[in-house]
C-alpha cells in the first residue's frame, strides 16, 4: 500500500516538475511546482521524516513559492506573450546534457549491487530535535546568522536610491 502511494507520488512529482519547466507562463509554473512540492512532502512523510515534510509544506510551498509569486506580480512578469521564450536552440543542449547526466547517474546506481534494505529504525521527532540542537547546534547558529545577513542584504538591495 505505502509502496504504491510512493510510486504514485513519485510520478506526480516528476510530471508536475516537467510541466513547471515547460510552462511558459511563470505563475502557472509556480502552481505546478507547488503541486510537486506537496507530493514531495508526502514522500518525506512516508520516508519517516514528518518534521521535514511539515516544513516542506510550510516554508517551501508556503513561503518561498509565494515569495516568487510576489516578485512576479511586482515586476509584472505574468505576460508570456511579451517575454522571449526558449526556442529549439535552447532546448536541445539542455536536454542533451540533462539526459547524459541522468543516464550516468542511473548507470552508477544500477552498477551497485542491489542492497537488501534493512529495516532502518524509525526516527522520532525527539531524536531529530536532539540531533538538530545538540550535535548540530553550531550549524543552527551559523544558519541563523546567515539568515540575518540575507535579511540585511535584501534590505540594502531593495532600498530605492536617489539617482
Amino acid at each position: 500500500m505505502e509502496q504504491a502511494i510512493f510510486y504514485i507520488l513519485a510520478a506526480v512529482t516528476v510530471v508536475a516538475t516537467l510541466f513547471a519547466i515547460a510552462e511558459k507562463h511563470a505563475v502557472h509554473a509556480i502552481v505546478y511546482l507547488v503541486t510537486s512540492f506537496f507530493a514531495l512532502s508526502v514522500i518525506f512523510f512516508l520516508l519517516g521524516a514528518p518534521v521535514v515534510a511539515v516544513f516542506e509544506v510550510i516554508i517551501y510551498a508556503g513561503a518561498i513559492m509565494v515569495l516568487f509569486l510576489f516578485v512576479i506580480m511586482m515586476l509584472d512578469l505574468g505576460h508570456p506573450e511579451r517575454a522571449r521564450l526558449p526556442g529549439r536552440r535552447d532546448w536541445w543542449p539542455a536536454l542533451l546534457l540533462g539526459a547524459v547526466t541522468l543516464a550516468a547517474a542511473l548507470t552508477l546506481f544500477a552498477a551497485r549491487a542491489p542492497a537488501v534494505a534493512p529495516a532502518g529504525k524509525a526516527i522520532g521527532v525527539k531524536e531529530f530535535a536532539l540531533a538538530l540542537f545538540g550535535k548540530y547546534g553550531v550549524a543552527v547558529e551559523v544558519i541563523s546568522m546567515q539568515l540575518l545577513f540575507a535579511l540585511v542584504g535584501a534590505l540594502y538591495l531593495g532600498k530605492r536610491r536617489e539617482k
Partner: protein
Amino acid sequence: MIVPFEHVLILAGILFALGLVCILVWRMNLIMLLIGIEIMLNAAMLAFVGGAARWGMADGQVFSLLIMAMTSAEVSLALAMVVYLHRRKKTVAADEFSELKG
C-alpha cells in the same frame, strides 16, 4: 523502509536532472532559473531524507532542514537582486547583465 533506497535515489536523480534542464533552458528569465535551482535543492533534500531513513539516523533529516533554511536565505537575496536588476535594466534576462566581462 517502504521502498528500496535506490528508487529514492533514482527519483532524486530525475528531479535533479529536471532542475538542471530548467536552468539551462530558461536563460531569458532569472525567475525560472531560480526555480530550477529550487528543484535541484529539493532533489538533494530527497536524497538526504532517503539516506536518513536507510540508515536510521537523524543527521540526514537535519541537513535537509538546514538546506531549507539556507535556501530561504538564498532566495530572499536572489529575489531582491532580481528586483534591483529589473529596476536598472527593465529586464530579467540573465544574459543582459554582462558587466563583469573580462
